[in-house]
């Protein structure tokens, strides 16, 4: 491999030049110092500066060259690139050693380089968000060029099965036209999310009330991490649990009442998802209830309210923004949950209000569209990105509203640990 050899040569050369620069820089600084002149920095710091001056520009040139070759497709022979970047390294070393003077602030120069390194690390998280946004929006736009946006948002039939015919140039066959109406998927998603919330919000909130207001300190320090184990269990495990253990139980219970339930019913994934989400609500609500100022409780008790009335009429209303914020985060979590529904919910888009029937969700269809043997260009594959875009928009707005509410709570009671 020519390229690999060049890479090894480049790294080896850089290491050697860096080492030489370090030794030369250090000995020069030591000499200057020994001659009795006062210097701004330690010899080691000058040495490190020469190393940075050697390696930094050379790595930059190498990286830019590699970027141009890989992505823009520029034809640069790797041997040239190797020679140029090593030459840059040698020039950098020479400049770095020239800079070893008593009046040069080597320490501050290193400091500036480190600062830029840290800034660029911090930028990666921004790039990640934009990366997600652009990758989804770009592919989703290609999807919306093929299919009408309004049909996607308002259509009630999701039938991508025939989309490969369009790719084969037979899109005109009226009977085989693929339909991408996402309403059944959203209906299924909201049904399962609603079931999860019906389980998680009451249990999570009551558990938080108990931990914050009634439980002795010992129980609280034990109960909180124990509950958080529920959130640490991998979702694929919950999916298996929902499909193998909970779904048959639901079918049996429904059968006992004379109802007909599918094995892929929406209740099983909903309930299991609810169990998973309990700690999200209980932990945050517990923190919020704890940070309601004690003066409010004392005031209420002084007026003759019982403990229960104080909690119901004073503490919970005061903590409400935080509790709503926790619930919104939980909803956002439930909407984007994938493995539980992939393993336990159905595959069939089904627009129904009966939670005992099988129904599918947005995330299930995303996984289904991207794991088949379809080409990347087909409408079904691209539809995954359109669904992802909607999911991104919904969860993003829920998160932002949740953050704003917790901020308001924090400003009102001057709490800093939330």
């Amino acid at each position, binding site marked *: 491999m020519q390229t690999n050899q060049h890479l090894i040569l480049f790294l080896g050369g850089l290491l050697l030049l860096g080492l030489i620069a370090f030794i030369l820089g250090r000995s020069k600084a030591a000499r200057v110092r020994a001659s009795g002149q006062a210097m701004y920095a330690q010899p080691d710091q000058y040495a490190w500066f020469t190393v940075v001056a050697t390696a930094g520009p050379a790595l930059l040139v190498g990286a830019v060259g590699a970027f141009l070759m890989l992505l823009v497709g520029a034809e640069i022979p790797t041997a040239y690139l190797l020679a140029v970047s090593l030459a840059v390294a040698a020039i950098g070393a020479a400049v770095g050693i020239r800079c070893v003077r008593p009046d040069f602030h080597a320490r501050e120069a290193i400091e500036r380089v480190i600062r830029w390194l*840290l800034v660029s*690390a911090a930028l990666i998280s921004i790039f990640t968000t934009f990366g*997600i946004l652009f990758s989804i929006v770009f592919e989703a736009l290609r999807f919306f060029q093929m299919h009408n946006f309004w049909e996607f948002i308002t259509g009630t039939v999701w039938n991508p099965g025939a989309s490969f015919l369009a790719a084969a140039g037979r899109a005109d066959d009226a009977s085989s036209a693929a339909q991408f109406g996402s309403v059944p998927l959203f209906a299924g998603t909201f049904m399962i999310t609603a079931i999860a919330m019906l389980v998680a919000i009451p*249990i999570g909130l009551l558990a938080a009330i108990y931990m914050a207001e009634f439980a002795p300190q010992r129980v609280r320090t034990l109960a909180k*991490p124990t509950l958080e184990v529920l959130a640490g269990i991998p*979702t694929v495990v919950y999916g298996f*649990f929902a499909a193998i253990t909970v779904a048959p139980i639901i079918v049996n219970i429904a059968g006992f009442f004379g109802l007909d339930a599918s094995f892929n019913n929406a209740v099983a994934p909903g309930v299991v998802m609810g169990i998973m989400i309990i700690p999200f609500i*209980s932990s945050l609500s517990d923190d919020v209830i704890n940070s309601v100022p004690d003066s409010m409780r004392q005031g209420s008790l002084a007026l003759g309210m019982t403990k229960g009335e104080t909690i119901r009429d004073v503490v919970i209303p005061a903590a409400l923004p935080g509790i709503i914020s926790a619930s919104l985060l939980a909803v956002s979590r439930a909407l984007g949950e994938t493995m539980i529904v992939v*393993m336990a919910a159905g595959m069939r888009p089904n627009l129904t209000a009966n939670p005992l029937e099988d129904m599918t969700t947005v995330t299930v269809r*995303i996984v289904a569209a991207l794991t088949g043997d379809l080409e990347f260009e087909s409408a079904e594959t691209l539809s995954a990105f359109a669904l992802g875009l909607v999911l991104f928009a919904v969860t993003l707005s829920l998160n932002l509203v949740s953050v704003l509410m917790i901020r308001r709570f924090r400003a009102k009671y001057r709490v800093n640990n939330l």
Partner: protein
Amino acid sequence: MSQSFDVISSQLKKRHRKSARLKWISMSALGLAGLFLVLFFADMLSKGLPAFQQAYIQVELEYNEDATRMGRAAMDPEVARLVSRTFERLIPGQLRANPELLGTSETRWVLATSEVDQYLKGHDNKLRGNQQEVVDELIEAGRLELRFNTTFFTRGDSKMAESAGILSAAVGTVLTMLVTLAISFPIGVMTAVYLEEFAPDNRFTQLIEININNLAAIPSILFGLLGLAIFISFFGVPRSSPLVGGMTLALMTLPVIIIATRTALRSVPDSIRHAAFGVGCSRWQVVRDHVLPLAMPGIMTGSIIGLAQAMGETAPLIIVGMVAFIPDVSASFTQAATVLPAQIFTWAGEPERAFVEKTAGGILVLLSILIFLNATAVILRKKFERRW
């Protein structure tokens, strides 16, 4: 006086009863959540523990001419049907490699089929009546028994339940986690150091902060879409490889590490920084020599928790193709691989009854690793936690 004392005191009793009721209801809610946890673990243990045992059968092998073409011919036909096909298939190759074995015979313990295994464990199976009689006779004769299932830990995936193991998935997990840590740990710590120690409080810094909090709440499957569109389609990273999986998970783990590191840095008291500045350290020297070493236990704890989270993640890995069928262990960063949760997902989709047990067994292994990691994090925190 509109109400007498009697009325008020009788109301008071009712009000206190109500208050007590709230206590009991909220306590039972907590109990219910705990009960779920207990039921869940009990269910997983009862389903998964049998996977660590496997039926082995003693067979007499006669290496005759036919066995060089069809391994089955070396065994008694009655017994041959009970022996795993993965063993049968090995016989012809073995004979070709060692021709001197021809004409000899030996007695060996080998893997039985998953149907026999399930019959021994009392589950549903597809053994016919006369086969069940043969099995019962063999058990009587001590030639068929359940033993510790080493295959489960020493082999990769297989389409035959009895010889399916988690080794290739475990190796894949290790490789993927190495990539994840190598990317997310330095970048996460550097970001946190910048935000806590260097950044001025301006719009740009606030933007980064909001963005990090938001990244922590984005559904994991969207990170998979990013991996597919950018890493695989745009940069051409090999699909299904630990490299692309690790990169995708690294982006997901980043916010966890950043938030944990910031908390750890914030808990180092300012007096330490002031003292270091006072003796003439530059900002970077303060951070490198004083703040970071003191914050290290907190950073390690956060990273371990982030790693545990990434280890259990499946959805983004499915999108970048890490649910491949990997029968052989490969220690390469760029070849197709699978990870433990993805292996669990694949097995959960197999229709055979014996795979349910394998799935639950895999889950038990994954859960033990996660419990171990989280316990390490807790112990680390307990041991090095410092109150200033």
